């Protein structure tokens, strides 16, 4: 609790918290203080001057004024009102009020509301257009004539998103927002994250989806609109009447625009926001401050990447294979066929001839039902999900050492940590919103950043220390740094003594990891390794973030373990700002495994082999469940080739593109007797199916997702399922009931209730506790309390103590000498996975039309490559054909291939079937190829409008001092006081 103190507000004594701004104190006291530029998520910006109040007789901006004991505030004096009036006049000079025909007139326009609250009837200085045109890109537009120069967009761009594109040029006669060094939006470094349009208090920065759509009268031609605006202004007798009419129009909009809370369907950060829909049209995504993971933040995909939902390519009817084509069919026929085939195959070959694959795109409830169908209805543990492709090794590493396979804390812990280390994570492109917290803390609050990666991506460019170990050698440098810390006597001995087992033995196993050895094997200088150790030692709190660069290796689980070991040795668990953060890649990668779509575990990571657990589920489901663990994805593909597995039911996963060595996987699909695929589109995988079932995406259903913070969040249905498509949970239930299971779920909340009743990890989870923007971070105890930060009290082992788990380095896959290039692969910011959702966005595809291969300037010189040169890359497993992009992000003989291509450029044509030895996660990152030049001198695969060609202009905030220094600026308080004299 903050300390309390007494102040006087308008003569009345009030008790207030310490360390809050005057504005907060006054608004908490329900004083009407306008505050147009102030935004709680951005803090005081001080550009608009509307919040001027009297503090101890002085006129001050309330937003930036502190409060001390005994301060006297006046919010009603004539001077205060006069000063505020001057401020709002200056705003209206910059902003034309035509509210009724404005798309932003939705009840939340802050200028409108301020004018109304202040009872302004007229302005003293008339509005004047600025000498600039509107500017736009595919996603938003800027109207200088409506821009009040409050600087919120600049603050958000510079200090929250930290892309550093926007500034206000205060020095020109008519200031305006500019992009980079004053270039059109499309030619700038803008990543279209949407922060600016989200925080804009008016219609200056607006989503293009809103234009002409939100209002009843906003869709008309400019020719008609202009006279109408003039009429409105001509007839008005003062602003109150115009505002009354626009208020009426705004309330009418409520009846046709729905605002529904949803959770993003892309990466694992778990952004939640309102989606505004009008019929099936998606007008905009409106982030909310109260959203627990992201607040006001989004990336381009979450803010603008929703076109796929209404794509004409969506499947709207079940498809049944018939000769050389699919035939659209009715549900009854498709379900009957599935029943018949499942039953036949089970009778002939046994239940273990069938297999089931859940999706990390689907909800927790759907993951639960899929494994219930497999185990409880069919009777097999052959159930897995796609976290097998990415994060199982991280989970393994954490299970070994600290007992819970999830992020140790919350995004706020990452934000407040003193040192962030990222290993094999392209955070700003793969987990954009999470990366903004690091970028922001690093820029503004002295957070240190160490990046270990092959590529010099944005995070590397921003880091304090960037190391580039040889591919697959992270375990070595991590262990060497750990050893150095131990040798220096910097280990957190008292933490280890109280909380950790196996300390002495572990320290002994570190013996081989000398600085000399590590430097030789990883190529990182001893100096940098020592510096790393020193920075860890000097930091009061450390978070380590890692991703696929660690896990997608043969030693992925071991390297993840080494990370956790390092954190244990240095005592970086169980305190705010510390811990292990395996960044989950999909919206529900965490939940897919949490809710039991794993071959050896029930929901909540309870072992299938445990008799007590199994009988609990058997009793609840009235079914016999096999005791032996089933096959994982990787083993399923093998079992198909071996002829043991006959049927697969796969949902929401383009396994034929995203699994490694896809030529081998395609071969397996062809051998299946019966293959059911459930998806939004006829994906590459679905093209092999016998029956394709049309599913509904997140916007068309209710349910919950669990993000990388272990945070369970609800999504609400915003749209009706398209055509005859159905939410996955309904389809699974339909299939189960076709097989006489007799399931009766009317709503996903009932599925969650059942899962919670059988799973101690989620004991207290209910839909009521998750209402709206509320969320729970597991473990959720029966009384409903959750654990945003793990391990504060104990580690979840019987003795409550963590374990140091010795690991050894596994050499990456070795290739013949002719395969002379190292292939790295991963995401791009603007596309997701194979791209079957994001390529549906015209705007995204305009800026980033296709995959490519990044080559270093050295390699380009050596092989005469330039932007657009088409090359064939050949591995022992297959080949891809891609155009080159020459960039310094990669060096020497390393190339980088974004994974967003499902055709000739699909990177998994190159990858092998080698996998993590402990979890079978494919070693996607252990690929080497040789290169053939096919065509020289093509055009660059990235058009000039791609943000990567921009020139960011870093600065802190909007630099309001420059506004104050202008000769035409006088503080309204001084104007008023001057008049008094």
């Amino acid at each position: 609790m903050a300390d309390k103190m007494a102040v006087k507000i308008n003569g009345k004594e009030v008790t207030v918290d310490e360390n809050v701004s005057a504005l907060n104190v006054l608004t908490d006291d329900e004083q009407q203080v306008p505050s147009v530029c102030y935004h709680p998520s951005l803090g005081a910006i001080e550009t608009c001057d509307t919040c001027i109040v009297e503090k101890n007789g002085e006129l001050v901006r309330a937003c930036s004024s502190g409060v001390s004991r005994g301060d006297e505030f006046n919010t009603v004096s004539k001077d205060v009102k006069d000063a505020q009036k001057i401020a709002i006049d200056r705003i209206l000079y910059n902003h034309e009020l035509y509210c009724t025909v404005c798309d932003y007139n939705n009840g939340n326009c802050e200028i409108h509301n301020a004018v109304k609250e202040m009872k302004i009837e007229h302005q003293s200085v008339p509005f004047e257009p600025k000498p600039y045109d509107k500017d736009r890109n595919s996603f938003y537009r800027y109207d200088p004539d409506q821009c009040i120069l409050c600087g919120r967009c600049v603050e958000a761009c510079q200090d929250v998103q930290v892309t550093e594109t926007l500034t206000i040029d205060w020095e020109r006669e008519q200031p305006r927002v500019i992009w980079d060094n004053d270039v059109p939006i499309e030619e700038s470094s803008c990543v279209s994250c949407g922060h600016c349009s989200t925080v804009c208090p008016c219609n200056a920065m607006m989503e293009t989806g809103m234009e002409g759509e939100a209002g009843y009268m906003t869709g008309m031609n400019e020719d008609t609109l202009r006279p109408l605006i003039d009429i409105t202004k001509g007839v008005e007798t003062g602003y109150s009447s115009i505002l009354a009419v626009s208020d009426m129009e705004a309330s009418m909009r409520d009846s046709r625009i729905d605002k529904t809370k949803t959770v993003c369907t892309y990466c694992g950060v778990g952004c939640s926001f309102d989606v505004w829909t009008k019929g099936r049209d998606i007008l905009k995504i409106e982030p909310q401050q109260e959203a627990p993971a992201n607040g006001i933040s989004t990336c381009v995909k979450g803010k603008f990447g929703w076109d796929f939902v209404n794509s004409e390519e969506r499947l709207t009817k079940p498809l049944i294979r018939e000769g050389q084509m699919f035939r659209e069919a009715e549900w009854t026929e498709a379900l009957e066929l599935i029943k018949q085939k499942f039953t036949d195959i089970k009778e002939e070959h046994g239940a273990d001839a069938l297999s089931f694959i859940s999706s990390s795109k689907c909800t927790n409830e759907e993951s639960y039902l899929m494994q219930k169908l497999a185990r409880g209805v069919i009777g097999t543990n052959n159930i897995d999900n796609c976290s097998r492709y990415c994060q199982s090794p991280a989970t393994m590493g954490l299970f070994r050492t600290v007992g819970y396979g999830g992020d140790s804390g919350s995004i706020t812990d990452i934000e407040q940590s003193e040192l962030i280390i990222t290993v094999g994570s392209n955070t700003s492109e793969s987990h954009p919103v999470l990366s903004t917290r690091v970028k922001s803390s690093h820029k503004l609050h002295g957070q240190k950043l160490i990046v270990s990666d092959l590529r010099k991506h944005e995070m590397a460019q921003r880091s304090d220390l960037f190391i580039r170990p040889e591919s697959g050698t992270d375990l070595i440098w991590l262990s060497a740094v750990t050893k150095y810390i131990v040798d220096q006597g910097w280990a957190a001995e008292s933490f280890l003594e109280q909380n950790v087992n196996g300390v002495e033995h572990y320290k002994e196993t570190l013996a081989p990891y000398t600085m000399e050895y590590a430097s030789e094997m990883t190529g990182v200088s001893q100096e940098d390794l020592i510096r790393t150790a020193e920075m860890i030692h000097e930091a009061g709190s450390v978070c380590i973030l890692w991703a696929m660069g660690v896990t997608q290796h043969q030693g992925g689980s071991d390297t993840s373990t080494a990370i956790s070991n390092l954190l244990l040795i240095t005592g970086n668990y169980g305190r705010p700002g510390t811990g292990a953060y395996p960044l989950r890649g999909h919206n529900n990668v965490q939940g897919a495994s949490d809710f039991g779509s794993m071959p050896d575990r029930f929901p909540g990571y309870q072992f299938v082999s445990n008799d007590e657990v199994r009988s609990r589920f058997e009793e609840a489901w009235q079914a016999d469940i096999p005791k032996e663990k089933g096959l994982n994805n990787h083993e399923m593909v093998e079992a198909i080739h071996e002829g043991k597995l006959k049927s697969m039911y796969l949902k929401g996963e383009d396994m034929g593109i995203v699994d490694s060595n896809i030529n081998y996987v395609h071969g397996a699909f062809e051998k299946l007797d019966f293959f059911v695929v459930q998806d939004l589109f006829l994906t590459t995988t679905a093209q092999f199916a016998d029956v394709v079932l049309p599913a509904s995406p997140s916007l068309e259903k209710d349910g919950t997702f669990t993000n990388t913070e272990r945070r369970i969040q609800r999504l609400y249905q915003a749209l009706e399922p398209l055509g005859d498509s159905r939410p996955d949970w309904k389809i699974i239930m339909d299939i189960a009931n076709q097989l006489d299971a007799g399931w009766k779920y009317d709503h996903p909340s009932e599925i969650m209730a059942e899962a919670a009743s059988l799973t101690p990890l989620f004991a207290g989870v209910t839909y009521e506790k998750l209402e709206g923007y509320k969320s729970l971070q597991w473990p959720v105890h029966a009384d409903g309390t959750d654990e945003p930060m793990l391990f504060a009290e104990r580690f979840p082992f019987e003795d409550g103590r963590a374990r140091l788990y010795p690991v050894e380095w596994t050499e990456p896959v070795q290739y013949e000498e002719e395969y002379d290039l190292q292939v790295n692969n991963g995401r791009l910011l603007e596309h997701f996975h194979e791209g079957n959702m994001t390529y549906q966005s015209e705007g995204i595809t305009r800026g980033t039309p296709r995959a490519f291969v990044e080559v270093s300037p050295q390699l380009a010189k050596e092989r005469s490559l330039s932007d657009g040169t088409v090359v064939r890359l050949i591995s022992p497993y297959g080949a891809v054909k891609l155009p080159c992009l020459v960039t310094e992000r990669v060096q020497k003989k390393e190339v980088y291939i974004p994974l967003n291509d499902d055709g000739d450029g699909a990177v998994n044509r190159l990858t092998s079937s080698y996998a993590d030895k402990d979890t079978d996660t494919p070693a996607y990152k252990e690929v080497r190829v040789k290169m053939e030049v096919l065509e020289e001198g093509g055009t660059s695969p990235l058009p000039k409008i791609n943000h990567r060609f921009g020139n960011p202009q870093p600065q802190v905030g909007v630099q309001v001092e420059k506004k104050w220094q202008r000769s035409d600026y006088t503080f309204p308080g001084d104007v008023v006081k001057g008049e008094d004299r």
Partner: protein
Amino acid sequence: MAEKIQHIKKQEPSEEEQRARDLREIEDALIDNKEVILKSLSTLQHADDRGVISLLHGLFADGDKVLQVLAETMNNEENTKAIRHLLLLMGIAGKLDVEKIEPLLLKFNEGLRRAGEAGDTEEKTGYMDLVKSLKDPEVNRAITLLLTFLKGMGQETEQDMKTGGESPD
């Protein structure tokens, strides 16, 4: 053995099937809304009798053009002033305190009635008559009332004005 295929044979109902389905849907809607449809039809009949339908037809058929002409026509000073005055008058009407005005009006009426009865008269009122009249309670009440009214009228009201100041455009 299931090879990759991309071709989808869409379930496209034949033209007749689709037509039958659509007709059925319309029929259902008609039956479900019988009452209101019959009423609407008769309303439309009346409207057509008076030529409203063709008027509306023209209006909607060229909606944007008409709206533009309308907007441009309205958008001249006289018209906007007229609407503005109307709005102002409405504002004032809303501010009138009828409860207080009622007794005044009654009194005013009575005055008018007597004045009417007296008709045009040759009788003159001298200064002394005036002073004497002040003793007449009826006259005294009327004068006091008038003075109070004049006082109120002289009070500063600029702060409540909507027509003054800079025009907001």
